[in-house]
């Protein structure tokens, strides 16, 4: 899974039939420390996320198909599945003494 920040919504009228009724979010991917990773993804929404929310998202086909319950013909990859409240990072390991 990945961490990202919702920065917008993508509106499309003409799309694959099983995309109807799904909200498509523009999500900027974040590093674990909260900085921008420089990449983004258009993801479906399963947690009612909105602009500015930091979300947990899956970017993998099988998990996305199960989450969206599309069946095996689902053309989906990225789905927002949760909100991130906080991230605790362990301190960087000390270099091994030579």
């Amino acid at each position, binding site marked *: 899974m990945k961490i990202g920040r*919702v*920065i*917008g919504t*993508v509106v499309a009228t003409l*799309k694959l039939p099983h*995309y109807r009724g799904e909200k498509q979010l*523009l999500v900027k991917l974040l590093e674990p420390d909260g900085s921008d990773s420089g990449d983004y*993804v258009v993801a479906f929404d399963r947690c009612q996320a909105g602009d500015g929310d930091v979300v947990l998202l899956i970017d993998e086909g099988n998990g996305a198909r199960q989450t969206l319950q599309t069946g095996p013909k689902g053309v989906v990859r990225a789905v927002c599945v949760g909100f991130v409240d906080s991230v605790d990072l362990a301190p960087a390991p000390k270099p091994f003494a030579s």
Partner: protein
Amino acid sequence: MKLGRVIGTVVAAKQLDCFQGEKFLIVQPLDENLKPDGEPLVANDTQQSGPGQMVTYIGGREATIPLGEPFNPSDAAITGIVDEVARG
């Protein structure tokens, strides 16, 4: 999925049987600010989109699913035509 802009069409006189009847488009990937980002790619069309339109496209194995022949080697497919990107 990613955002892209259709910048051309590809016509292949000879192609794999599994691509018969499928349309190929050249898609310029866009970044989150809708600026061109990276090298153009060839994607299969599923939405009757044309040059100039902004689209969403999907890469990887999922790109093979919307095509008529299920066993095909496509690695990018257009999934929707974007009307608007509303930024927060």
